[in-house]
């Protein structure tokens, strides 16, 4: 919970530092990509806090089985 608040505050700070100048310069493409990346960061943190499986566990479930077949460790 604390981490999501910290991430949100950092995201607001980043927007204030780099996002507002983009609005002033009317660089809408840059602002869109900027917003998408910030959005993904916040979304990833929220999904983690809500208990969604981690990205690596999802990858491990799909590709990891192949890896375990190849690397036959005792």
């Amino acid at each position: 919970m604390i981490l999501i608040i910290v991430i949100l505050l950092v995201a607001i700070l980043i927007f204030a530092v780099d996002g507002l100048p983009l609005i002033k310069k009317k660089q809408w493409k840059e602002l869109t990509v900027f917003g998408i990346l910030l959005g993904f960061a916040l979304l990833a943190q929220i999904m983690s806090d809500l208990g969604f499986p981690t990205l690596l566990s999802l990858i491990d479930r799909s590709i990891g089985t192949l890896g375990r077949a190849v690397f036959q460790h005792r």
Partner: protein
Amino acid sequence: MKEKGIISTNQFVWMLFSIIAAFAILDIPGLLIFHAGRDAWLSLAGAWFLDVLLAMVYAYMGLRFPGQNTVQYSISILGKYAGRIVGIMFPLFYLLVASALMRSLTELISSFFLLRTPVALTLAMSFIVIAYGIKKGIEAIARTCEVLGPIYLLSLIILFALLIPKLEIHRLKPILAQGAYPILTGIPFILSFIGTCIIMGMYIPICNKPENGFLAKFIAVTLGVSMIGLVIVFGVGIFGAERAGNMVNPGIRLARWASIGDFLQRLEIIYFALSVAAGVMTSANMMWAFSLGISQVAGLNSYKPIVYPAVLLAFVLSMTAIGNAVELYDFAIYSYMFIAIFVETGLEMLLFITALILGKRGNSA
């Protein structure tokens, strides 16, 4: 958009060396020994050879499309839409490597030195440094690697020199006791880690002598793989294959054994400090490539406005995408190899073959 920074061939070499050598201090040599036993060094030799062949392809593509990096020539070869779909995979791969590497490094720092410091705090400090470096530009990162790389190389050479009296070379025999299968499967495993220097595809267009791309990669890979090889040989030679394969980090354990007489011991802190610096520089390189790649796919004028959001995303992924150290090791051993080989070799070979078939070339500068 074109990256305006310029790097020299010397900087090119040390940047790639830092990337490869950063993996030497992590758990990768230990994981390779875990898999291939005392023959791990043979897997490494095979991976070196394949990586050199791969470097030829990247270097050739860099010259066939002068002034363009992997993302840009993906678009040139495959067109606006398919090219962007393929091109975006390279920056996403760099993001994955940076996130996983920083988390791995932070777990190492937390388990060896800063036991009570929260992982999030150590990660945040590292990413702040990375963001600052990227904002300063690739030339700042290149200059740092140019200073750090030789120091790191020298420290590794001194470490191994101090350990020679303790080495029992007979522990590397018998060769091929477990057959060829562990060696053959070990090759793509270690290649997936040293192959992260496909980032050379992003460096070639910004090098003042792009024709030196292959030479720079060859020197860097040979030096880097030699260092990893020495960690493996000394790890097996001093601890034995079974024990070295079960170690969290054989490199740091080796550094603990090094001493100069009775008055200079526990040198691992020096080794570790340099290794962490190399790891941070590797992530800085990866995140620069991610920011640049995404900005080129999106058609932006500059990558600098998206640096902070990109680094925040990498921080969040480091914290949330990886549950714990065990999950990280499972990913490193069983899953990462397939993703890496697909991006490093599969995508580039697709671009290479398509460029040859369609006769696509870049415009000469």
